[in-house]
């Protein structure tokens, strides 16, 4: 079962990558994605944000996304770490790391997991801007990104 974690604490990308490859000699490739809070969204300055989630379903959704990636590509392992709670610009929100023998699979699976996570995992961002608090709206481009995996697209 892939390693999935939801936590308030920061994570160390290097340690997550090391944990994925530790003691293994059959891994030729690790593709990693780290998502961070930007100080600008939809044209407005963002001073901080809060990430809400659906405890229980979040872990299930992430495990389901990982299982889909494992079924679709020849991977060695993968892990997902997602933060919740208060975050500031520059903070890392999410890490997806995928190991495989060759790089093509690792890249494709890492991008697939991110695209699915963006549309399927129950997290919601609330930003603080000068105009006050606001819930971040879902992006149509994220739906498009997730959909291409089911339409024989760039995968």
């Amino acid at each position, binding site marked *: 079962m892939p390693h999935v974690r939801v936590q308030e604490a920061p994570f160390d990308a290097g340690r997550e990558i090391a944990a994925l490859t530790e003691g293994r000699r059959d891994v030729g490739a690790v593709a990693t994605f780290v*998502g961070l809070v930007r100080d600008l969204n939809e044209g407005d300055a963002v001073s901080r944000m809060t*990430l*809400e*989630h*659906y405890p*229980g*379903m979040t872990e*299930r*959704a992430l495990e389901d996304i990982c299982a889909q990636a494992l079924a679709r590509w020849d991977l060695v392992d993968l892990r997902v770490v*997602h933060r919740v709670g208060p975050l500031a610009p520059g903070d890392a*929100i*999410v890490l997806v790391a995928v190991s495989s023998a060759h790089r093509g699979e690792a890249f494709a699976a890492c991008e697939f997991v*991110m695209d699915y*996570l*963006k*549309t*399927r*995992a*129950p*997290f*919601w*961002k*609330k930003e603080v801007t000068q105009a006050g608090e606001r*819930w*971040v*709206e*879902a*992006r149509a481009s994220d739906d498009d990104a997730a959909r291409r995996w089911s339409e024989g697209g760039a995968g």
Partner: protein
Amino acid sequence: MVTLLYFASLRERLDCAREQVALPAGAPTVGTLVEALRARDGRWSEAFAPGRDWRVAVNQQMAGAATPLKPGDEVAFFPPVTGG
């Protein structure tokens, strides 16, 4: 009875995070449950008005209007997700 959960902007709009409700009679589905919620006061009828964009999970799996419901289910309503 089923447990309803509301998240994010939907929770704030309804001013409700969690409640227990009786299932509609007959063969209840997410759709018939939503009709019952829509028959409530202004906040619920507005939040679940036709054309409003919400998502639903039943027992922590993404579901749809046709998904059948049984006593004890956990039904969660929320806006489109924005994680990552």
